């Protein structure tokens, strides 16, 4: 690969297509212009030469015949000869010269005179006279025996300015035509590259849509056999991926459902036993409490798993949710002593979404703060233009910057969390927060607090109409 080739390949595809079309049009235009001009010039000059020559011979015959007279008035004859587009004549004998107007003997090129005098044939020559292109014709004449003249020759000079002018106009027209052709080439290049890149744009749009979670996105069938293969394989890939995702989601959903029935028996049986607590010995009561705690943990785990599998696939309820009301209701049912601060701009702000999932987001953040951060201290709602942000703060050990992304992954817990809540929690709560926020077109993040320990978890949700 040459260096030039590399450079060409490095240019964007669109530029290359347009470049190729422009170059092609330019070469075509150039070839066309050169050939057209060359041929026209040649044929016009030839035509002019032939017609001038015919006139020249006719004139020459007239001069020839006048030479038979005793004392021909050659000056008058030359003036009376028909002139083709300003042609001028000259008669030259050994020592005398007759000319028509505005022509001097020195205006004839010496090589022409010499070659005419050496031959009996007519001679032609093209040269520039007073900076004007001209044709000059010359022919040796045969004076009559009675004539005193010897070495008589007749010359005619025909200006070519008219032909030159025509050729100049032609050149100008061809130049304009050439430029137009190149422009049309650029235009076709633009159009063709647009057409060529359309499928690529479609594919990148489809890929982006899939990345956003619309797994049923497919490309439209096309009739072009080249593109059809690409579209086919893209759609196959999308279908395979959708299939896999659905299967995975269904699997975890099925597993969770199977777990729910035995849990129901466990839950009801434990409650029946709790109802009869006083009939049990101390030791049995303690065992019952252990059992109860574990069943609660199990229930939460199954619920979280189920919610996660649903957030992968299931449809979402879409309602206008008043965030302030939602947060207040969630805080009330969490019955902690948590301060709520609502920015004036966030009052009454609405989010399009699923009320219970949004409540679960906040609930999980509160639970997270409870488990690993000594409990939430403050909940704040602020508005940032197109989004509404709910922040939950705690006074716990905080989250190390290196773990701030990681803790939103499934089954992941931060170092501090592992130390504190040993054995408790599966690391799904924050993953659910993140997934639910995403499903609502928002996101979740955690940051430190200025000048003090603790963490601030923030969920950002687009306001209704801003999604």
């Amino acid at each position, binding site marked *: 690969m040459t260096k030039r080739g590399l450079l060409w390949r490095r240019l964007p595809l669109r530029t290359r297509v347009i470049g190729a079309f422009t170059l092609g049009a330019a070469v075509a235009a150039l070839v066309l212009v050169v050939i057209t001009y060359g041929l026209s010039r040649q044929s016009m000059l030839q035509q002019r030469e032939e017609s001038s020559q015919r006139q020249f011979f006719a004139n020459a015959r007239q001069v020839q015949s006048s030479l038979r007279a005793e004392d021909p008035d050659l000056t008058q004859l030359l003036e009376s000869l028909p002139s083709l587009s300003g042609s001028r004549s000259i008669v030259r004998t050994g020592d005398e010269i007759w000319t028509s107007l505005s022509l001097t003997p020195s205006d004839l090129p010496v090589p022409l005179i010499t070659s005419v005098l050496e031959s009996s044939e007519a001679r032609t020559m093209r040269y520039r006279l007073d900076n004007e292109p001209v044709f000059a014709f010359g022919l040796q004449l045969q004076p009559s025996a009675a004539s005193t003249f010897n070495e008589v020759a007749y010359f005619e000079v025909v200006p070519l300015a008219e032909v030159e002018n025509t050729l100049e106009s032609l050149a100008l027209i061809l130049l304009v035509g050439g430029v137009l052709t190149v422009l049309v080439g650029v235009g076709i290049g633009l159009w063709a590259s647009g057409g060529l890149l359309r499928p690529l744009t479609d594919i990148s749009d489809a890929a982006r849509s899939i990345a956003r979670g619309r797994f049923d996105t497919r490309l439209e069938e096309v009739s072009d056999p080249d593109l059809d293969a690409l579209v086919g394989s893209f759609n196959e890939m999308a279908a395979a991926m959708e299939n896999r995702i659905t299967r995975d989601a269904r699997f975890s*959903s099925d597993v969770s*459902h199977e777990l*729910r*029935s*035995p*849990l*129901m*028996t*466990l*839950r*009801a*049986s434990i*409650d*029946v036993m709790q*109802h009869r607590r006083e009939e049990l010995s101390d030791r049995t009561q303690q065992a019952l409490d252990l059992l109860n705690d574990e069943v609660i943990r199990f*229930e939460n785990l199954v619920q979280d798993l189920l919610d996660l599998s*649903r957030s992968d696939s*299931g*449809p979402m*309820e879409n*309602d*206008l949710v008043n965030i302030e*009301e*939602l947060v207040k*209701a969630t805080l009330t*049912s969490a019955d902690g002593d948590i301060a709520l601060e609502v920015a004036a701009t966030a009052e009454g702000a*609405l989010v399009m979404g699923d*009320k*219970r999932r949004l*409540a679960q987001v906040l609930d999980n953040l509160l639970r997270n703060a409870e488990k690993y951060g000594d409990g939430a201290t403050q909940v704040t709602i602020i508005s940032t233009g197109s989004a509404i942000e709910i922040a939950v703060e705690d006074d716990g050990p905080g989250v190390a910057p290196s773990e701030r992304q990681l803790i939103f992954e499934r089954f992941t817990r931060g170092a501090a969390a592992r130390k504190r809540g040993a054995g408790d929690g599966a690391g799904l709560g924050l993953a659910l927060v993140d997934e639910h926020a995403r499903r609502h077109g928002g996101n979740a993040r955690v940051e430190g607090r200025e000048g003090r320990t603790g963490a601030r978890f923030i969920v950002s949700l687009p306001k209704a109409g801003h999604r």
Partner: protein
Amino acid sequence: MSIRILTIEDDERIRTAVRFALEDEGWSVLEAETGEQALEGFNSMAPDLVLVDIGLPGIDGFEVCRELRRGSDVPIIMVTARDDTHDVVAGLEAGADDYVTKPIAPKELSARIRALLRRVKPEDATAAPRTVGDLEIIPDEGVVRKNGEEIHLTKTEFHLLCELSDQLGKVLSREHLLEEVWGYDYFGDGRLVDVHVRRLRTKVEPDPAHPRHVVTVRGMGYKLQA
């Protein structure tokens, strides 16, 4: 006579555990293992409330709901292991009054049962008879007449209509209706209201597709108008 609750559930362990829990509340519990059994014995058992599991062998819970609704307005709570939209809405469309999701804590289940049973008693239906367009509502008697002809509503539908007619022309939010009719707090499922409104419309509206009486106010709730 104590309140009788029929549980239709194929899993014997769940059935037994639930029976223990409900009996602790002082209710008597009748059991059916399949939908066929329940429908067969329904008239002789005459329960005050039915708990029906969706995933039954043979005819499923939805079908049981539909069959029961043919001849009875007994309150039905459906018990489902799936709370995705499809199952919940299908169950409510089939005629269930409310739904709970496994694993439900007995305390919550009892609260739901109590909310439905309380509504069934006419104690809060003391308001005066009212007329809304071609509808005549008599809360004391639990009767609704359309153009003078009595129409049959379930207890929940009737309660919903009374609640809407209490504040005629005013928009009531789904949260408000969930609290008043079903006894839920803020986090009740709005789909309960939507499906019941839909069912109510098929009975009281001249053209259910273009409701005149029970009107949806987008993003806010529902209102009743003449």
